[in-house]
């Protein structure tokens, strides 16, 4: 209460104090005069004996303050006034920092959201995933039979659950849409430890054999989106691929499954998955299609669990040869656990670059601040002369720096937020429900603040050295810090070199990315996606079986061919860059179909006749399929060159035979060119193609893609194609899109990396320009007089230029070379970000040097002109 009253009475106290001091002095003067001094003499003596009036009253006032805080507040107030007086400087500094910090906030948010974020379940720290092998190579899924053994025979876990992603045609009422959900084991929610928002979850006790639990749990978001959060949904029936499921519950808000970006719309018991998809994964030990996650018992380390599971796996392999070579590793569940996640490496790399940008920004500001401190040296010296301590002045300068950096941090975070909220609504994969949980959380804000303050100190402390060494007397006389204390000049040189090196590194990175991007866009695909449009559907969503599906697909192809303007049409179960599966290939004559006996795995596509022509894939030798290659005729296959080379070496492949399993035997009738199937940057993959009418081993597909090639405009052909296929079967949800889109989508990560790197490169370039410009113009203005004299004495333009701009240019060269070397050394890091290019490429080296030279020219152009425009007569007169 006391301090509160003081707040209001303080002005009184202060004025009392000053009046009192005045009275004191007056009385003293009177007394001295009474002893015979003249008035001025007396006044001087009084003041001398009293001491520093300003200091005394300040110290008197300080008694009433919360000393530290208030004097800091006063510093802040003063700093704000000071900064308001030089808005240009303040604005530049804040924008520079906002860019640097903003870039870091964006990258860190993404890192935080995608990688550091724990799963949204209670106690995520003891949730672990059981992955295949040693955990490297990204093969994470397990077979259901192996899962059951792990769950029932291993003692490391309190519970172990399994799930798989399923694409399902979902009918609510009349509408039928494509949707994605999880088929999950009965104990799924219990292992995760979740409580439903509404209704109940399914449990292990609901599992009574195949198709025994037609229950579905909706995700919170889906419940809001599709059912307006109505509590009446409980007990309602919805159709998954035309099979009725009863809604029994809604998941908690904020729980989005356990995958990185994929958010399932619902969960249903995996015992019912076969009923929906028609293919039963459960009985096969070698169908690896389930992710397995469990909670370790207290006190059990992941290492112990791994050992225990491997002992079990060896035992299982003895019991069933299908498990030959089985091994497992236990890793932290969720994005944080996957140590060899390439995206993680890429993001860490980008984070590093972002920090470099910030470092460059700080360096830049440090030199601006140093220059500013030099300009203000007169003011600072006067303040020291009238009794301010060095520490005080230092604190003042630091306050300014931190104030600017915090303002920059806030501005940067604000822009980062805008960018991130746009980014988190980004749906790069069509109607596939991806979400990026990257909106900044407390951790991000904390990092942003910490970065700002650290930056403030970083660039605030550099001029501090100058202040510390200031000789007050000298400075007041000359008006500037004398050159002796300006040994900081060497420091500024180093700062500039660092900045240029960082900039060169970033420019290198962005050039590498752009070039890699261009290269990968020119890579031969093995098909011509341009002008090709795809209509995708899962015919099972409308209740079709294999035989019916193929007949339906043929009718759709016929309908599509009849569209005027369509030059070719065909069908397939899937096409490259749109998913698709693979099978293990065995040599002819294999009798035991164990993973250890296989030749290799190959991408598998089921094609209708005419596909090769429509897709623009070259048939090297042999023939295309016909509608007569069906179940009544022997199995035939078309393979690509990589496949032919791998299995048959240099022999002619036509007429050769291979097998997938005992009853799936094929004779090669054609060989096509190699191509890309899943990604533009993959190495040549073996691929095989079977007639859609034969399927692998007689399994006819229900997934269907109608592909048409046409010169019509995209809107036109999309509409026409939709009309044609819905005319054949209206109850199937179709996804119609140009094939190019699918390929673009596969480029999303690389493209994002390129954009990010280019932005960083540009930021760094901007910083470098201002840095060089600052340095050059400073050195010009500092030596203006000297140059004037030299010109007057007959120096040539070139000589003058050399002496003023020589230094920045040399620094530029040194910095560029260091940056370039760094770039070459970090090329392995960059290869994580982009394929097909390295900084060792001479074109890139040349490009970087050229860019840096251009930057240097740009930045020193104005100072150079100033030098040349020196009029010696006028300068000397001044």
């Amino acid at each position, binding site marked *: 209460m006391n301090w509160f009253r003081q707040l209001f009475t303080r002005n009184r106290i202060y004025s009392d104090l000053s*009046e*009192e001091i005045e009275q*004191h002095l007056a009385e*003293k003067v009177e007394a001295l005069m009474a002893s015979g001094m003249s008035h001025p003499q007396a006044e001087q003596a009084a003041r001398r004996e009293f*001491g520093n009036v300003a200091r*005394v009253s300040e110290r008197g006032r300080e008694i*009433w303050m919360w000393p530290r805080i208030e004097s800091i507040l006063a510093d802040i107030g003063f700093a704000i006034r000071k900064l308001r007086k030089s808005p240009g400087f303040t604005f530049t500094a804040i924008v520079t920092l906002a860019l640097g910090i903003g870039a870091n906030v964006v990258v860190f948010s993404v890192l935080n959201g995608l990688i550091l974020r724990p799963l949204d379940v209670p106690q995520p720290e003891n949730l672990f995933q059981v992955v295949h092998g040693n955990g490297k190579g990204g093969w994470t899924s397990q077979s259901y039979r192996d899962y059951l053994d792990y769950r029932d025979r291993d003692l490391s876990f309190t519970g172990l659950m399994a799930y798989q992603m399923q694409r399902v045609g979902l009918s609510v009422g009349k509408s039928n849409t494509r949707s994605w959900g999880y088929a999950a084991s009965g104990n799924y929610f219990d292992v995760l430890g979740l409580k439903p928002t509404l209704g109940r979850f399914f449990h292990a006790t609901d599992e009574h054999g195949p198709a025994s639990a037609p229950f579905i749990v909706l995700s919170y978001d889906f419940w809001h989106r599709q059912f307006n959060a109505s509590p009446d949904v409980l007990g309602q029936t919805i159709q998954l691929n035309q099979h009725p499921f009863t809604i029994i519950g809604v998941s908690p808000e904020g729980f989005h499954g356990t995958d990185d970006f994929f958010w399932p719309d619902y969960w249903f018991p995996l015992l019912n998955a076969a009923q929906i998809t028609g293919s039963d994964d459960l009985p096969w030990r070698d169908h690896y299609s389930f992710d397995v996650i469990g909670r370790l018992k207290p006190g059990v380390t992941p290492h112990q669990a791994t050992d225990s599971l491997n002992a079990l796996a060896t035992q299982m392999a003895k019991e069933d040869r299908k498990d030959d070579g089985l091994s497992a590793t236990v890793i932290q569940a969720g994005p944080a656990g996957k140590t060899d996640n390439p995206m993680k490496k890429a993001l860490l790399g980008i984070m590093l670059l972002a920090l470099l940008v910030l470092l460059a920004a700080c360096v830049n500001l440090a030199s601006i601040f140093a220059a500013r401190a030099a300009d203000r040296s007169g003011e600072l010296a006067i303040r020291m002369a009238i009794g301010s301590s060095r520490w005080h002045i230092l604190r003042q300068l630091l306050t300014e720096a931190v104030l600017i950096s915090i303002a920059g941090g806030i501005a940067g975070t604000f822009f980062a937020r805008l960018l991130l909220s746009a980014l988190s609504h980004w749906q790069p994969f069509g109607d596939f429900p991806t979400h990026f949980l990257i909106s900044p959380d407390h951790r991000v804000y904390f990092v942003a603040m910490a970065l700002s303050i650290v930056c403030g100190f970083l660039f605030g402390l550099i001029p501090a050295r100058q202040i510390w060494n200031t000789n007050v007397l000298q400075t007041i006389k000359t008006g500037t810090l004398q050159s002796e204390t300006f040994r900081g000049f060497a420091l500024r040189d180093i700062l500039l070199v660092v900045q240029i090196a960082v900039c060169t590194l970033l420019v290198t990175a962005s050039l590498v990315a752009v070039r890699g991007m261009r290269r990968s866009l020119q890579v031969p695909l093995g098909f011509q996606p341009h002008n090709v449009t795809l209509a995708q559907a899962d015919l099972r969503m409308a209740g079709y079986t294999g035989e019916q599906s193929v007949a339906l697909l043929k009718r759709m192809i016929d309908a599509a061919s009849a569209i005027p303007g369509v030059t070719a049409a065909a069908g397939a179960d899937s096409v490259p860059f749109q998913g698709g599966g693979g099978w293990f290939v065995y040599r002819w004559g294999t009798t035991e179909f164990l993973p250890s006996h296989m030749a290799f795995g190959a991408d598998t596509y089921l094609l209708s006749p005419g596909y090769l022509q429509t897709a623009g894939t070259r048939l090297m030798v042999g023939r295309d399929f016909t509608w007569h290659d069906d179940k009544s005729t022997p199995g035939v296959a078309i393979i690509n060159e990589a496949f032919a080379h791998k299995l048959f070496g240099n022999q002619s492949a036509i007429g050769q035979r291979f097998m997938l399993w005992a009853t799936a035997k094929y004779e090669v009738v054609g060989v096509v060119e190699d191509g890309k199937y899943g990604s533009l940057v993959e190495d040549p993959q073996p691929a095989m193609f079977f007639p859609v009418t034969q399927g692998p081993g007689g399994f006819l597909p229900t997934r269907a893609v109608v592909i048409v090639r046409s010169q019509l405009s995209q809107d036109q052909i999309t509409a026409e194609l939709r009309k044609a296929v819905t005319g054949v079967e209206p109850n199937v949800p179709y996804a119609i899109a140009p094939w190019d889109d699918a390929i673009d989508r596969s480029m999303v990560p690389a493209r994002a990396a390129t954009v990010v790197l280019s932005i960083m490169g540009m930021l760094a370039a901007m910083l470098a320009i201002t840095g060089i410009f600052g340095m050059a113009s400073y050195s010009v203005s500092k030596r203006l007089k000297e140059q004037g004299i030299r010109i007057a004495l007959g120096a040539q333009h070139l000589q003058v230029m050399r002496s003023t701009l020589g230094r920045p240019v040399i620094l530029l060269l040194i910095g560029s070379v260091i940056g370039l070397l760094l770039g070459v050394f970090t090329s392995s890091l960059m290869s994580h970000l982009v394929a097909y290019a390295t900084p060792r490429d001479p074109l890139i080296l040349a490009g970087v040097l050229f860019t840096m030279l251009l930057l240097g020219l740009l930045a020193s152009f104005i100072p150079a002109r100033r030098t040349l425009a020196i009029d010696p007569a006028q300068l000397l007169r001044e």
Partner: protein
Amino acid sequence: MMVLQSLQRHPMHGYALVQHIKQRSNELLQVEEGSLYPALQRLLKEGQVKAEWEISLSNRRVRTYRITPAGKKHLEREISSFERMLEGITLVLSPSES
């Protein structure tokens, strides 16, 4: 302590206080006169003295400080602890008595 002790004798204003201390210490304590004011402000804040504007004998508006009961108590404590300390120092510094 010196200030409180002086004020205990009779209330004074700042200038008088300075002169008083100078005299009493036989000019041994040569402090800057100004340094008295922060000290007075601290005592004021801690409630050991209070101040009022008055008209002095020389017809000048002066701010007279008076010691408060709290100040008296504080002074007693200070003096007794100071005396103890002094006693201790004296004991240590006089080797002959041991």
